[in-house]
């Protein structure tokens, strides 16, 4: 008889309690195994002949028995073993059921692909909420998620355990990308459910979330492909990190640009500079250009994360435009507006910039989609001996948008030119403009165009030789609007026997010019005219006359190709006309003058686009410095004096320093101009040569500079400005109307133009000065065999007078004079309204159509004499009536 001690029994029970869970999980019957073991121990004890079994005996016996081993379940499925006798693989035990597999395939692969294709085709989300696919990289990254899910799903189906490792990485990256998009679409999940409930569809917003869930589920299945279900699957954190890194690389430039914009728009000067440096280094042009158009709904990219980091603070469009110029060095509207991705159906209206913030204002503003130049025609007549030209520019605008648009453009006139006629076609009839004070005509335009939304056109000056033209409405859905400007300008004379006509051109515009649209040009006169381009060829003309005609692209119109060279009688050095607009018998004469400066100050724009011109300007400086005291200032982030006053070697040193000047972004030129003016004013007869790129942004106030110019007095410095390429100039706009500002005619290469300018100051070269004087008798006017010419000469004299009166602070007299001669000057403008009632309401009077300048049709010479005679009679009667009225 064997006796078990209490301790022995307790030890045995502890052992059985400990092994029971393992037995139960092994597929064995735990109670049966424990009974078997109990029986086996009894047999051992009996075999050993033990009378008393102690705790130590039990421990010894159990140590030999050992812990129960749990055999793999696969070994016990042999009853259903396959005929091929193939060993069972891990895949077969981890493979999910067909339903679950189908769910994974739908949620992780099929639905994301459908969603991606639909968004690419319709831009549904972009139009309604935000653009989730702003770049091709976003598209590729989104497409990566269903691709990775499909590879994982396929490996699970085929039991490809060897692909486990890299599938783990891919899956981690897919989880990262899907998680990011699921986060972005979180706000749309509830509307998605509602749409499913009420309309039966609306799963698309759920696509990122469902693909994320599928990716997580597939990861669990891929892990089970391993030797045991517990074996870890590598690559989750690293794959996740790679996915998020890819997202960051795509989103980072846009985000960095937004942060840079906010810094550059800061009130702190230091932060502004840091922001500009940052944007020049890492800013994305597209993001900055979008900011220039404001942040309306269609313009926004996917920016939820960006908003979380950078905050909701937005840089205004006005500030963004200034920053764009300072970073890029070009105006934001010199390139087309950014693409806007919008939806279809109810969102179709958003397919263009819907809000024109500059409507009715005095800025050209951003390009408006749908608005374009439909046709353009320039007709020019030249009087070579009298040294003037008159150009009529007829512009027709078309609007394909579904709302009315205002067309705005800044036009560069020929040097010294003035707008002397403005016509608008209303219902097919020509309507002439009223000329009056600048604020008066603008107010009338605002009232009619902006408030009544009717048919006016307005022209005001926008700097020396620049005017702003704006007309509204260009009717929607393909409507047309046609306007004509008449421009009187003096010829630019390089010598007594040769003059140059530069056709006006577009500096800045808010409309597009479609491929194939050309400017149709005709030029004629009683002189020989040579074209600057093969695009213009000799046309039919009367005896003693010549004519050119042809088509020019917009780029050609603003290039030397649009220059017309006019041959003239070198002995004919004076001209006169009877001033029929003046009260009493008055006549206008022109004279020749030679000018030589005492000091020349070069102001060099330090903007990025000036880099190719540094050597050219340096050569010009060396040429001037050889004989004249020369100073050189560079407009950079600060004004840089490249030399002290001096000539010879000091000038040459300055030229060398200029060649090494670092240019970047768009620079503020006003401080350098003011400093140059102060230096020039120290010595009588000084000249400033300002070589610059377009200045589309006025970065600081120009008030101090305009004050200096207003108070200049006799012997004031003369400022010659050379713009390297066509474009808007906000600094020159502020210098409007000052007689000391001269725009240098751009004939070709900058080097040649600078050389001609410098040569014109040398005693050996006579420069035709467009100075016109009033004489009281016809005999005095005719003195020296002066040629009698047209009233255009009087218009040019009147322009000089307006400038003089303005400088003498006699604005009312200046306005009256400008209105009488029908001129657009810094103090006056021209506006065409739709009907007499509008004119009455605004206190304006349109000019008599008989008094406007015109270009006779070629070949109608016989009618010209009759027309001139009739005009003379009408003018005489009108003058007499006017005299009586004045009395």
């Amino acid at each position, binding site marked *: 008889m064997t006796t078990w001690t209490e301790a022995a029994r307790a030890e045995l029970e502890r052992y059985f309690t400990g092994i029971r869970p393992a037995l139960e999980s092994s597929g064995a019957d735990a109670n049966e195994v424990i009974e078997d073991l109990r029986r086996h121990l*009894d047999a051992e004890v009996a075999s050993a002949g033990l009378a008393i079994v102690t705790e130590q005996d039990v421990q010894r016996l159990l140590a030999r*028995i050992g812990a129960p*081993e749990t*055999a793999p379940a696969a*070994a016990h499925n*042999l009853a259903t*073993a396959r005929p091929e*006798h193939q060993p069972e693989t891990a895949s077969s035990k981890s493979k999910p059921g067909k339903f679950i597999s189908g769910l994974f395939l739908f949620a992780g692969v099929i639905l994301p692909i459908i969603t991606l294709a639909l968004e690419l085709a319709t831009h549904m989300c972009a139009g309604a909420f935000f653009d989730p696919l702003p770049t091709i990289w976003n598209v590729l990254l989104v497409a990566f998620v269903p691709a990775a899910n499909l590879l994982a799903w396929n490996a699970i189906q085929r039991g490809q355990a060897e692909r486990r490792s890299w599938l783990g990485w891919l899956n981690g990256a897919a989880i990262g990308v899907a998680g990011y998009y699921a986060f972005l679409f979180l706000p749309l999940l509830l509307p998605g459910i509602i749409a499913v409930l009420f309309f039966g569809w609306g799963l698309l917003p759920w696509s990122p979330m469902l693909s994320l869930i599928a990716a997580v589920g597939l990861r669990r299945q891929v892990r089970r492909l391993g030797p045991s279900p517990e074996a870890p699957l590598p690559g989750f954190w690293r794959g996740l990190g790679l996915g998020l890194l890819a997202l960051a690389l795509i989103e980072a430039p846009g985000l960095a640009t937004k942060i840079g914009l906010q810094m550059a728009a800061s009130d702190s000067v230091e932060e502004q500079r840091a922001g500009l440096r940052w944007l020049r280094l890492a800013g994305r042009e597209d993001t900055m250009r979008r900011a220039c158009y404001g942040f309306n709904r269609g313009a926004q990219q996917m920016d939820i994360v960006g908003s979380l980091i950078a905050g909701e603070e937005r840089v205004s469009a006005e500030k963004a435009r200034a920053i764009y110029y300072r970073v890029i060095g070009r105006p934001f509207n010199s390139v087309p507006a950014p693409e806007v991705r919008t939806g279809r159906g109810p969102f179709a209206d958003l397919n263009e910039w819907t809000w024109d913030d500059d409507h009715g204002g005095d800025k050209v503003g951003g390009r408006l989609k749908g608005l374009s130049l439909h046709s353009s025609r320039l007709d020019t007549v030249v009087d070579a001996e009298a040294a003037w030209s008159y150009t009529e520019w007829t512009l027709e605008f078309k609007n394909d948008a579904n709302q009315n648009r205002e067309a705005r453009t800044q036009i560069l006139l020929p040097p010294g030119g003035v707008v002397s006629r403005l016509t608008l076609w209303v219902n097919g009839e020509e309507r002439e403009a009223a000329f009056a004070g600048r604020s008066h005509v603008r107010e009338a335009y605002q009232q009619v165009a902006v408030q009544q939304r009717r048919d006016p056109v307005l022209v005001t000056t926008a700097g020396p030789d620049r005017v702003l033209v704006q007309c509204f409405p260009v009717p929607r859905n393909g409507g047309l609007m046609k306007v004509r400007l008449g421009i009187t300008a003096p010829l630019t004379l390089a010598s007594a026997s040769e003059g140059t006509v530069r056709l006006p051109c577009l500096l800045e515009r808010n409309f597009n010019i479609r491929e194939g649209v050309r400017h149709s040009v005709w030029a004629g006169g009683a002189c020989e005219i040579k074209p600057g381009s093969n695009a213009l060829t000799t046309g039919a003309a009367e005896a003693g006359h010549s004519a050119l005609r042809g088509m020019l692209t917009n780029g050609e119109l603003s290039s030397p190709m649009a220059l017309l060279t006019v041959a003239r009688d070198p002995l004919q050095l004076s001209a006169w006309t009877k001033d029929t607009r003046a009260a009493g018998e008055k006549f206008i004469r022109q004279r020749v003058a030679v000018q030589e400066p005492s000091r020349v100050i070069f102001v060099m724009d330090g903007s990025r686009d000036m880099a190719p011109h540094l050597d050219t300007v340096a050569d010009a400086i060396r040429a001037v410095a050889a004989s004249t005291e020369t100073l050189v200032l560079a407009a950079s982030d600060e004004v840089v004096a490249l030399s002290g006053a001096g000539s010879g070697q000091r000038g040459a040193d300055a030229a060398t320093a200029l060649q090494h000047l670092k240019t970047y972004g768009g620079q503020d030129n006003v401080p350098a101009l003011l400093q140059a003016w102060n230096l020039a004013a120290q010595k009588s007869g000084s000249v400033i040569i300002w070589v610059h790129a377009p200045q589309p942004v006025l970065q600081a106030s120009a008030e101090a500079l305009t004050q200096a110019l207003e108070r200049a007095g006799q012997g004031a410095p003369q400022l010659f400005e050379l713009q390297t390429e066509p474009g808007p100039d906000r600094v020159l706009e502020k210098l409007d109307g000052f007689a000391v500002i001269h725009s240098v005619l751009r004939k070709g290469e900058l080097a040649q133009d600078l050389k001609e300018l410098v040569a014109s100051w040398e005693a050996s070269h006579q420069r035709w000065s467009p100075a016109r004087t009033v004489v009281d008798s016809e005999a005095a006017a005719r003195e020296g065999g002066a040629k009698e010419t047209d009233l255009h000469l009087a218009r040019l004299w009147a322009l000089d007078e307006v400038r003089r009166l303005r400088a003498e602070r006699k604005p009312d007299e200046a306005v009256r004079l400008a209105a009488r001669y029908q001129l657009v000057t810094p103090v006056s403008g021209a506006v065409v309204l739709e009907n007499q009632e509008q004119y009455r309401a605004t206190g304006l009077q349109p000019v008599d159509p008989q008094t406007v300048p015109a270009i006779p049709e070629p070949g109608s010479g016989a009618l010209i004499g009759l027309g001139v005679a009739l005009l003379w009679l009408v003018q005489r009667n009108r003058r007499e009536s006017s005299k009586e009225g004045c009395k």
Partner: protein
Amino acid sequence: MSDYFDNWTVQVRKGVLDLCVLRALAEKERYGYELVKTLVDVPGLGLTEGTLYPLLSRLRVQGLVITRLEESTEGPARKYYTLTAEGRKALGLMEDYMDTLNKGTRSLRRKGE
């Protein structure tokens, strides 16, 4: 290297243990204690009671063996294990598979030599 080999032998033993038990029972009906004593002597198998009884229980659950108790004059009652038809079929499949596997591994061995 030693750890690796030990782990490998454990896996191999697990794989062939069922085969050894079924083979021992195919010869004749045996009770548990007798089975242990028989299989403990098989070189390399490294069988312990803690491994055998759960395995026998699982074979019974799978229907490959049946059991019966019989009183013994020498000690506690004995539990006899007998192979079922399904057990014999499974044993046949396992034998075939092992033959194939052995042939395969031998052929590789020759090529390796």
